[in-house]
């Protein structure tokens, strides 16, 4: 069973043309915390530390995630900015795996944007001033494609390099624990 999310924004409703696999997302940053994720009721009370409030959504995040070109660029940049030196091809090494459902600092585009720009204390370098903003968004979109968060027709289907893992397009969608901090959630038949 797949879960389809609907996110409601304060700013309005963001929708994009849906291929059948594409999700319709509407943001609601202020939503209450009790929903059902994969049939499991989540706690009302949250620990304070890591998964803070859901970040304010950025239109950039979503825009880049709709563009196969941008995601492809992100894949190339992931190599040329040496992200792959620490995260390998998503399985991780020095840095954590990015293809799984676990997120230290959150799975949302804006959080990943901050990971890259601000860096993180336990060894994630800050790329502030080193990567132009649009490229950061391309990287964000690509990072999310590694765990199957992007529509299949946007995620890269092949690699120019030696095949060391399935193409991102074939990566199963992981369900990070923070994906369900949304207002409305429906199971899908």
């Amino acid at each position: 069973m797949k879960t389809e999310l609907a996110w409601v924004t304060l700013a309005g409703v963001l929708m994009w043309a849906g291929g059948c696999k594409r999700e319709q997302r509407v943001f609601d940053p202020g939503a209450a915390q009790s929903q059902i994720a994969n049939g499991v009721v989540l706690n009302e009370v949250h620990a304070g530390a890591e998964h803070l409030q859901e970040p304010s959504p950025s239109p950039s995040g979503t825009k880049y995630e709709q563009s196969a070109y941008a995601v492809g660029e992100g894949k190339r940049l992931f190599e040329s900015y040496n992200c792959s030196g620490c995260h390998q091809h998503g399985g991780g090494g020095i840095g954590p795996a990015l293809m799984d459902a676990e997120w230290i600092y959150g799975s949302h585009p804006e959080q990943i944007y901050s990971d890259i720009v601000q860096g993180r204390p336990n060894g994630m370098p800050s790329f502030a001033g080193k990567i132009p903003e649009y490229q950061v968004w391309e990287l964000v979109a690509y990072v999310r494609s590694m765990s199957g968060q992007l529509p299949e027709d946007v995620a890269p289907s092949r690699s120019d390099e030696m095949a060391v893992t399935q193409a991102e397009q074939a990566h199963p969608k992981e369900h990070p624990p923070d994906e369900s901090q949304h207002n409305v959630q429906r199971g899908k038949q």
Partner: protein
Amino acid sequence: MLLSGCQKSATQEVMQPAGFGGVMHPYSGPMEKDDEEWVRATKDYANTRYSALDQINTSNVANLKVAWTFNTGVARGQEAAPIIANNTMYVVAPWPNKLFALDLTKPGAPLKWSYDPNPSPAAKGEACCDLVNRGAVYADGKVFYNTLDGYTVAVNADSGKLAWRTRMGNLALGETMTMAPMVVKDKVLVGDSGGEFGVRGWVAALNTKDGKVVWQAYSTGPDKDVLIGDRFKPFYDGDKGQDLGVKTWPPDAWRIGGGTAWGFMAYDPAQNLVYYGTANPGPWNPEVRPGTNKWTSGVFARDADTGQAVWFYQMSPHDLYDWDGINENVLLDLPVQGQTRKVLIRADRNGYLYVIDRTTGQVLSATSYVYTTTTTGVDLKTGELQRVPEKEPKTGQEIRNICPVAPGAKDWQPMSFSPRTGLLYVPHENMCMDEEGVTPNYIAGTPYVGANVRYYAGPGGNEGELMAWDPLSGKKVWTVTDKYPMWSGTVVTAGDVVFYGTMDGWFRAADARTGKTLWQFKTGSGIVGQPVTYRGPDGKQYVAILSGIGGWPGAIVSNNLDTRDDTAANGWGSALRDLKNVTQAGGTLYVFSLP
């Protein structure tokens, strides 16, 4: 009597195949007198890791029991050798590198004190291979060790108070420190890590009293930086010439060329020479650094007082595969063609077991000890490694079946030598890889590698092996295979027992003469550490090992990596797909004794 604990596990097998042909001959050369402690990781200056204790021996080792344990509080790769001196055991944990002093005079060895160096968390992103530390060294009432963020610290052995600390590594450039220092006279010798980050390698000698750097010798760059001067007399022509540390590189590439020194040091008091290996050149992709890339992937002999180089030998000139030359050097006096020679023996990452004259740097023999597709031998006239050109990595092309792998025929995990059998007990890998060169990009503080790699087991399907090697005939006597790479060191005793651990957590005692498992104990996590043995204040012999999976391969578990990616942990994903199902991260010291 049938002890269930003595049965072999399914993944392990002892073999003495035909054609091995090595023999045991007691060693008559000099050995350092055993102090029954373990003051440095290597046990003695010669790196034999031999203990003359024989209370625990082949006839009673089956009765070995846990005496006490201690939790380091860090569930990361435990590669350190516990240090025993001053009726105390000193244990360095992985980052954040706390040093624990355990009181051996009291039951259960309670904590006397702990020292917290408070290292930078940023170091966690700069260390290639988990957050490991390979141990401390005790000398003159102080304990010395290195922190991951690049400091050498000296702590008062009784009080646990900091005596001094000296910043040696530049974290911003990806320079970290993991090696176990050695003290020679009034100097503590240390070296850096970071060969995967384009750092420039070095070894330094610090005054044990105040931490001031007395000398520092780089592995690349002009002769004055490398401490190459009048005394330098390399044996082979390829190592002769001025400023080869500059000229054997493309312009300026030596500045980010690697050659770090993160292995164990050895010392020959008679010649006052220290020996150590230099790590791989950076980046891995060899196409961007034409030349022999001096002085990487080789061995230096240096004057212990001045650091001046005396000779150098390069096992892997213009290294193609990340074959660091850091593996330990065991110093022995062996008969070679009827003459006793002072030699240095090393099981190199490139797959050859070298016997080198340690006075001159001449290679006396270099014998293949693993399955190899990449080289055909070592030319003893020129000292050169004979390459197989088809196996050279190429940018944009996948080359398959490169054997041995990047971690080598053997990585840092140290061997031991018993004078009673004359054999070396060598834990090592049996692995091959596929590699594709990619364009490396130097960004300070990020990896500088330029290669995609995927590792897997070599012929036979076992990734690891412990072999007993006869250095005179250059042949194996026996070998124990293991499903996983054998990433723990070994210790051998006068009781004819070899202790070693496996990545799935078994700690074993093998018969030094046959390899047969005489005893085994399943620890809480995988073992990648260095076993030690000592006589306690109560007169009993103890054996100690840290259990805690991690290090380069074990990071699959300790850093919770995803093995759907073959390149996870820089190539181990494909080799260790199931390791997370087999063992969990941990960090526990186990100390064993007879009841």
